[in-house]
């Protein structure tokens, strides 16, 4: 029964962790490869204001229960639309759609959204009404299907490859 439920969640693109905690399932909206690439772009384009670990610096933190709170009532589309038009502040809209999508994937990962098999696209991100809530680090580690989409070992400028890729079987 438990297996069936898990398989059902997987087939719908949802992580099982949320239901284990008695909460609504957390959807898998991006692939691990996208988040991995997004991390590198984040470090180049965003970290100077939002902090190397998205903890906030001169700009706000972009992860955690205060950023992605029920009170803030952000949907994925809100953050994506704002970011892709107005960020980075020194050159708004200057990144490619792929770069914005990858950064969105990275931010979803950092807020505990699991990776999945289907890639996030600009169209999906700009119309996703999924609430952007912080789901904690465990959702990332427990997400199914991550290993299949993890990129090869980090190279080049990526100094801190995604932790869930390292921990995946």
């Amino acid at each position, binding site marked *: 029964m438990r297996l069936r439920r898990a398989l059902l969640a997987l087939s719908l693109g949802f992580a099982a962790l949320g239901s284990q905690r008695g909460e609504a399932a957390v959807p898998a909206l991006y692939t691990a490869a996208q988040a991995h690439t997004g991390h590198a772009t984040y470090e180049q384009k965003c970290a*100077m*204001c939002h902090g190397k670990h998205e903890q*906030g*610096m*001169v*700009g*706000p*933190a972009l992860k955690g229960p*205060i*950023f992605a*709170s029920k*009170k*803030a*009532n*952000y949907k994925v589309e*809100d*953050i994506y*639309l*704002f970011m892709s*038009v*107005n960020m980075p*502040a*020194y*050159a*708004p*809209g*200057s990144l490619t759609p792929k770069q914005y999508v990858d950064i969105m994937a990275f931010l979803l990962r950092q807020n505990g959204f699991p990776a999945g098999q289907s890639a996030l696209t600009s169209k999906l991100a700009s119309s996703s009404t999924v609430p952007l809530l912080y789901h904690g680090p465990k959702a990332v580690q427990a997400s199914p299907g991550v290993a299949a989409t993890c990129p090869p070992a980090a190279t080049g400028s990526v100094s801190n490859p995604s932790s869930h890729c390292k921990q995946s079987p």
Partner: protein
Amino acid sequence: MTMFARLLRNASAWHVPCRIVACDGLPVGYRTCRARQQYSGEYSTMKVNQTKHRLSRLWLGVSLAVALAPATAALAAGYPQVTNARLAAAQNDNGWLMFRRDYAGRSYAPFKQINTANVNTLHEVWSYQSHLKQGYESTPIVNGQYMFITTPKDHLIALNAVTGKVLWKYVKPMKGVGFKTVCCDVVNRGVALYGDNVYMATLDNYVVALNAMTGKVVWQRELKPADVGYAMTLAPMILKGMVIVGESGGEYGARDFIQALDAKTGALLWRRWTTAAPGHLGGNTWPKGMYKHGGGSAWLTGTYDASTNTLFWGVGNPSPWLAKLRPGLNLFTDSLLALDPSTGKIKWYYQYTPHDSWDYDGVNTPVLTSLSYHGKEYKAIVHADRNGWFYAINRVNGKLIYAEPFTRATSVEGFKDGLPYTNNALRPTMTKQIFTCPSFLGGKNWWPISVDPQTHMAYVPTMHTCMTMKGAPTFYHAGLPYLGESFEVVHDPADHSWGALQAINVDTGRQAWNHDSALPWDAGAMSTAGGLVFSGSARGHLYAFDAQTGKILWRSPKLSSGIIAPPSTFMVNGKQYVAILAGWGGGTPIWGGKMVPVVKSIPRGGHLYVFALR
């Protein structure tokens, strides 16, 4: 245990003479002794002239401890009450009692001890370092021997103004605060003083009153929730027993306001909304309902004219930035408000930029001065606006005396019948990208000017930028920016210095002298009766210029970071001091377009320096 409780627990430790943990020889003839405070990462450093103290390390430690003793005793004797009378005469006070020194906002001190003849012997007497890496925009406020500074994220520190010893520290609790609607770095611009209290306005929209001697909170009042559009970064103003503050939020669709509170109790007295509602003066200048998210932030401290009992306060840009979305003049955005300070009622207003589409906040300090223009004397306000024009306005009736551009200014094209008109071809749309000057960072951003009654000059930190700008999709969501434009800040094609400090003759509006800077010049100015103008550079030097000619008479050694704060000066026991906070940050490194890579390598971190004559 809360941070505040921890600080109280440690407070007794701060009142003993500092333990000396390191002494380093310096090549310039004096020795540094570092007295580490009781919390990690922050310490005060006192410099002692080596030529007078050729002592062993041990003896130096003893002499420093002894030197601290009289100051401590003097502090124990009491805290000088800050009364309405002292504030009214703040210009002549030995301290520096409010944001721009006096109600006129001139940032001019009557002290002559440090002057054109001896300023080249100015040297550091003590410093204090903070561990936070964001921008430092606070003016050191001094009363007697007490100095108060603020840091990013609303830490308030009281120090002995002579020795640098930390007396107490207050850290505003920020539990659950995301700093989501703070546009331009998590800064604070300093405190106000009244009675025994010190007042701070915070990023989570509190006004906090603390006992100036102990740091204990006397009252605090939340004006708005955090993270939904509002924030406060300004130094409060004290006037007639009120504490007056203004909200930021023009980038987030807030409806902003100026708020007066009872300085003793924190009770709310009056609120002046800065976007006009239907049925009120200016209410027909907005499309239906748009005033509710219309911005009009009031994020810099105002000034006050006792002769007409008028409070002056500048108002910021309309929200969203793209003007096409809100046809009309959008009052009272980008305007100077003349208010009755007992009610907040508008006496008159002057809009610097009508129907703004370029983010030209009108908040820069309206400075009160007398001037003579074409042979006629005026009680005037002078104001260097973000839109690149230097305004002189009759402060009795609100009529324009003159306006002159102080940098390349193309968005506001000229003036007719005393009112500005804009170049409508330079208004961006969703399909049209424009190029105009200055950029939204302004011909001058918030960096306070100084007006010297001796030279009749205004000393104006200046930015030479232009920008591309185009309409972009936007939507209102509390807690997210609300702009509707994309943009890039670039060089003024005709001027490849990013910054300057220039002197403007207030009797003509024309430039008297100019000091160019390859890097932006984002620091406030201060002038003194010693014939000097002080201001700091992004490279981290505090400068003293000849107020009359602009000649550089002194330049500090390179400080630990670039300067974006204004200096202050004060007298204690007959000795004049100059104080400045270094600590690069603010809006330029976030929004500065082509400037960003230029300033990227400027070191971060806060450091307060105090100088005196050798």
